[in-house]
């Protein structure tokens, strides 16, 4: 996998960008999830799990208290099988919750647990392969030795040390183990943890984009559009339109879609200075819309003849 060359849009050439080649031969840009997002997702998931396990435990305790009440508070004639049943329910619930939570959700159509969904990431097979149930199982089994076993062992060791038992170097060994797996994603380019390596998966940002409005159909950019304020139609000549390239066009597009009026005024002034017009005031938006539409018409027209202008320097 190699980082894609910049063809369009901002932020394409950062370290987390990868490409995916679909079976149709189309290259799609994907972005790996950041390590902090993944850590956040894991924390949310663990919190959900721990809280629901505690909730079930409290519920079972409450039921057990009820069972004990039925015996007139004499543990001697406690109904053994009722108490035992509650114990089994708890043990099985913990097991199923622990492994099922990740497994079932990641196998679903979203490929993400609740925590991953909240931070906006999902798992995917590396390369352009299909995500399989085996891969999901493998990556989740490995999570145990990466995080939970060393954590549990550490807690046990710490409590032993608290009671002044001698734990020797074992504490440091377990800490080292924990640190090794925790830092694993920092030692490879794709941010893979051990489970991802075994399963052939990686974690990517979930694609999310809303279709924005058509700029060239509104305001002064439209086919017969004129300024609403002055009623003037802006027309730019060949020389004025050949200054800027695609990069500036797309910056202008972003500004038109979500910038504030004073920012637009600054852009307006800068463009007027560049193309040698005398900047007026009060009609910046109409001017910029018209300029955007005509610049894009020219650049796209050139594009159809195979002539591209990346930015104002080329």
């Amino acid at each position, binding site marked *: 996998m190699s980082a894609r060359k910049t063809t369009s849009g901002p932020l394409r050439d950062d370290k987390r960008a990868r490409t995916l080649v679909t079976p149709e031969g189309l290259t799609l840009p994907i972005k790996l999830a950041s390590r902090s997002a993944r850590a956040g997702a894991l924390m949310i998931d663990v919190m959900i799990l721990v809280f629901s396990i505690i909730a079930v435990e409290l519920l079972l305790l409450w039921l057990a208290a009820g069972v004990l009440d039925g015996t007139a508070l004499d543990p001697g004639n406690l109904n053994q099988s009722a108490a035992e049943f509650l114990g089994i329910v708890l043990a099985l619930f913990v097991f199923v919750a622990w492994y099922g939570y990740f497994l079932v959700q990641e196998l679903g159509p979203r490929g993400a647990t609740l925590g991953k969904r909240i931070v906006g990431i999902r798992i995917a097979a590396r390369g352009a392969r299909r995500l*399989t149930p085996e891969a999901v199982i493998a990556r989740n089994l490995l999570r145990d030795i990466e995080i939970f076993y060393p954590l549990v062992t550490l807690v046990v060791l710490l409590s032993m040390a608290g009671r002044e038992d001698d734990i020797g170097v074992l504490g440091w060994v377990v800490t080292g183990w924990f640190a090794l797996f925790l830092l694993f994603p920092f030692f490879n380019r794709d941010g893979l943890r051990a489970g991802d390596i075994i399963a052939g998966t990686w974690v990517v940002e979930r694609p999310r984009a809303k279709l924005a409005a058509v700029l060239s159909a509104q305001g002064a950019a*439209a086919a017969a559009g004129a300024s609403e304020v002055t009623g003037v139609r802006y027309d730019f000549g060949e020389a004025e339109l050949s200054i800027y390239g695609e990069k500036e066009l797309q910056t202008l597009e972003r500004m038109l879609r979500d910038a504030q009026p004073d920012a637009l005024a600054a852009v307006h002034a800068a463009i007027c200075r560049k193309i040698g017009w005398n900047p007026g005031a009060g009609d910046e938006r109409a001017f910029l819309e018209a300029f955007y539409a005509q610049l894009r018409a020219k*650049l796209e027209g050139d594009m159809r003849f195979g002539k591209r202008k990346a930015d104002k320097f080329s």
Partner: protein
Amino acid sequence: MKAPIISSWFGRGAVATPPDIESAALRSDRFRLEREGEWRRLEDILARMERGGLKRIADDDLVALPALYRTAASSLSVARETSLDAATLAYLEALVQRAWFQVYGPRQGFVRWLRGFLMGGWSRAVRALWLDICIALFVMVAGTVVGWLLVARDEAWYYRLFPAGGGDARVPGATREQLLESLSHDEGAYGLAGFAAQLFSNNSGVCILAFALGFAFGIPSLLLLVHNMALLGALLWLFNGQGLTVELAAWLSVHGTTELFGILLSGAAGLHIGRAMAFPGKLPVLESAAAAGRRSAVVMVGVVIMMIVAALLEAFPRQLVEDTGSRFIIGGTMLIIWLSYFILYRPAAPLGDAGSPEAG
């Protein structure tokens, strides 16, 4: 940064009507307006699929999905060559990627996968690991012998292997009656189900550990096997001293044939990954590890099932059946069932089955 996702949970369904095509000044925008309806339909189908699986999708939408995906993909490649509208390009890239995840996503849910797994996927995966199983078996036998020899040479090793000590009758120097007593059943069925549930979480934890440690080139998996089997060897030595080997073997065999088989398989699965990483052959290391990981994950799901069976056997028949012969019959039957399931049960692999070890 993208907008927080919370907003997308509420602002759904408000779709503005697209402006009319003639009003667009640019050819590329007219191209977009002509196809926008299909993109939005695809987006809508995808949103419903992501929310609730396939059941909520009408049949004709499901049939249209691949065609809509290809339309969006070809729109994207045309737009890349003709349009400079960054927002539309970003939208199309995200849309095609989302559709790709669904069209080429996991083909089966968990339940369907589980059915394919029981109907042949499991035994195929086990057979694919035959070499690792042989190695793990050898290591386990060696571990038992080592445990025996260690304790036979120096009894102090016994206390090192079983540090609990206090209250347990099974210590060197115990009389024949005490040992025999420890093999007999407990008072009754009380507490056995809870015991089974506990045994199960404990044993499957050990197995998952043996598997996951395979990541360090398989060596910790083998060490874990040796350690567990050394305990068995020491126990065998202890009972042999009082001429109780047969009784111990019967007592162990009830659940042991299933449990030790499960431990054998998880050790082999760990070793399989370790071997794939140490000797990747012609594949890149990551590819090789991933292929081995997927194969052994299938085996591991099976091991968890075996642990459930073993825990039930350990809690009920072993504690309730006292006769040596009957214990051997139960254990032997389980062994024969497992062996014939893994070796003789060979249904044809369904075409393109994701459960088969070769797929993917």
